[in-house]
């Protein structure tokens, strides 16, 4: 956990007071909606179809049990008893009243949380791997660097009114769990040939109307230079990014139009003028932030305690969950546990206040009081002693978050879609729910293996459909909901954008199409362990296209 200091606490408390005054002036008529809208957006307050929506940041996806209880409290007191975990390590409340927003924000501020920069044309919540600090394949905890950049860009006046929003992700593992290449800017910590640690810098990624994967503009950046180089990128974007056309305003368009090499030259020219100035990091500054990250005092334990093996033999359901939802930890005797927020027929990413409270209690008992939020809209308990796994599983199952479907076809990423969102063209959640019902048989899901279905209700792509193994995009045709299907997308270290397989299909046929695609895969794969994504890569989309449209 990162421990905030007095400066952080003052900042969020002052912001609450400022927003309380702004809300009062809006409700009295002193501020018009035109004047108030940019102010509320700076605090993560949107207006959706039915109500105001509050988006609160969970920086780099790390929550304390105290903070998770606060998420539950806000859900219960100010909303309708649940919250929605998003694809960018935020939580959203969909039914919040304007007059109560300042109180909700004050409650969040009491645990160091806020909605600043979860909207607007600024640097958004900086995301990372939900397994940060515990993944065996990690070089170094990436949250240190996420926090360092977060501190620099928070309320930074130069970067509060950029051409468009700006999303940054940081990773440091060989396997990318943070969808780095879908971000405006990605920092990937790695070791160069001399064995030194530094960052690969990638820019220009983003999904939405015009999807691009981020391109490398600097293969190796020394740690000391990370702030100055990020600043140079932001300045270059601020100067050259388009402000005349919202659809061409993201940095991905600038990088695409200039080309990565030319963009890198512009960045480098800016960087040379600032790299040895105040933003050059010294060890003391980094150490100060690093010291604020507190790590558990792990027990000395051995991997594979006998009681765990016995429990797996004794209970098939527990064994299935162990195989699916429990991952190796970098510390012997511990495990990383993913809590599926994707029950059959449920809304992906939703959790009730009761579930959040219960998970906070379980985190205290079994995970040193720490919880993580992943971009796949599931939660993680990052520090569970392996001997505790049977008891933890029973407790998680009792609250409905132990479905052993992580990374399977029913572990769907979905935006809120037309059921909530004012931008959406079509519904996402009912599509996701129907797919989970069609594939409720876990043996079938296991047979299908790793298969990511991502659904967006409009071209803005909050559901990351471009990088789903099966991507589903809702569009409108003559007032009816239709859905485009793409195949072969992926968001990991070998990120790829999916390929459209053909004409959009109507709402009622989407789950049928997914079943056809799954059936085609089972026939086409060369071996049981050839993953869906590898089959698509080998065969292309044509055999799937033929199967889907043969009878349509």
């Amino acid at each position: 956990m990162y421990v905030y200091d007095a400066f952080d606490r003052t900042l969020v408390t002052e912001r609450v007071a400022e927003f309380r005054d702004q809300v009062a002036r809006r409700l009295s008529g002193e501020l018009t909606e035109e004047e108030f809208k940019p102010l509320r957006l700076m605090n993560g307050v949107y207006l959706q179809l039915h109500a105001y929506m509050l988006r609160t940041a969970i920086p780099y996806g790390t929550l304390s049990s105290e903070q998770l209880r606060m998420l539950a409290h806000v859900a219960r007191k100010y909303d309708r008893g649940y919250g929605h975990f998003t694809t960018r390590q935020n939580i959203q409340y969909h039914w919040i009243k304007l007059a109560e927003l300042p109180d909700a924000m004050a409650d969040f501020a009491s645990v160091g949380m806020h909605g600043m920069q979860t909207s607007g044309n600024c640097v958004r919540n900086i995301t990372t791997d939900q397994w940060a600090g515990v993944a065996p394949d990690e070089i170094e905890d990436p949250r240190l660097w996420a926090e360092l950049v977060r501190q620099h860009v928070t309320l930074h006046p130069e970067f509060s009114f950029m051409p468009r929003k700006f999303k940054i992700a940081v990773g440091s593992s060989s396997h990318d769990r943070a969808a780095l290449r879908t971000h405006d800017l990605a920092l990937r910590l790695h070791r160069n040939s001399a064995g030194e640690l530094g960052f690969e810098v990638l820019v220009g990624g983003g999904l939405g109307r015009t999807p691009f994967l981020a391109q490398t503009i600097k293969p190796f950046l020394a740690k000391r230079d990370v702030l100055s180089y990020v600043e140079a990128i932001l300045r270059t974007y601020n100067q050259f990014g388009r402000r005349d056309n919202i659809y061409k305003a993201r940095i991905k368009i600038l990088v695409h139009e200039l080309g990565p090499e030319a963009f890198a030259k512009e960045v480098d020219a800016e960087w040379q003028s600032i790299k040895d100035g105040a933003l050059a990091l010294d060890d003391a500054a980094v150490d100060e932030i690093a010291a604020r990250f507190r790590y558990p005092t792990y027990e000395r334990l051995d991997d594979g305690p006998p009681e765990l093996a016995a429990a797996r033999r004794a209970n098939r359901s527990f064994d299935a969950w162990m195989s699916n939802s429990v991952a190796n930890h970098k510390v012997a005797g511990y495990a990383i546990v993913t809590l599926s927020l994707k029950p059959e027929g449920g809304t992906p990413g939703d959790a009730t206040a009761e579930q959040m409270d219960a998970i906070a209690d379980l985190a205290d008992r079994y995970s040193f009081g720490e919880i993580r939020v992943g971009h796949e809209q599931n939660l993680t308990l990052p520090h569970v002693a392996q001997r505790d796994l049977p008891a933890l599983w029973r407790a998680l199952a009792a609250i409905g978050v132990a479905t052993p479907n992580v990374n399977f076809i029913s572990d769907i990423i979905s935006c809120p879609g037309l059921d909530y969102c004012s931008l959406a063209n079509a519904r996402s959640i009912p599509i996701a729910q129907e797919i989970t019902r069609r594939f409720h048989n876990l043996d079938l899901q296991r047979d299908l293996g790793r298969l990511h279905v991502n659904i967006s209700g409009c071209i803005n792509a909050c559901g990351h459909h471009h990088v789903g193994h099966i991507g589903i995009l809702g569009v409108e045709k003559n007032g009816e909901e239709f859905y485009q299907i793409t195949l072969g997308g992926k968001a990991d270290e070998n990120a790829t954008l999916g390929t459209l397989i053909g004409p959009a299909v109507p709402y009622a046929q989407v789950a049928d199409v997914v079943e056809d695609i799954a059936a085609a895969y089972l026939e086409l794969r060369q071996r049981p362990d050839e993953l869906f994504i590898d089959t698509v890569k080998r065969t292309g989309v044509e055999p799937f296209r033929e199967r889907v449209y043969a009878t349509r």
Partner: protein
Amino acid sequence: MTSPLEQKKLKITGPVVVTANRVGDGAVVYRQTDGGWSTSLDAAAVVTSAADAQELMHAATADDLGAIGPYVAPVKLLPGGHVRPGNLRELIRLGGPTIELPVAFQTEHQSDKLAAHVRL
């Protein structure tokens, strides 16, 4: 559904209402003939010409403290004077999400709305 946020020019081909979100809680409201707002679509002022719609819009836009983001939405007129939404987006705005909200917090009110969706 094409977002009314992109609505630029009024083209009226049937009955329409002016709808917006209430300032205090963001609830969906409809402009009434008397200049007020109602959460009941049946209470909305229904017009069928661009001139009448523009007049409603003009008054609604001026009422910045009453509701936010007014726009013209299509409706269907049913026998008995009832008014129904003209497309899925408006149906969802009126009735709420087409999905069940988390069960523990499902209120009777929401259940009624869901039932209304099924009927529609």
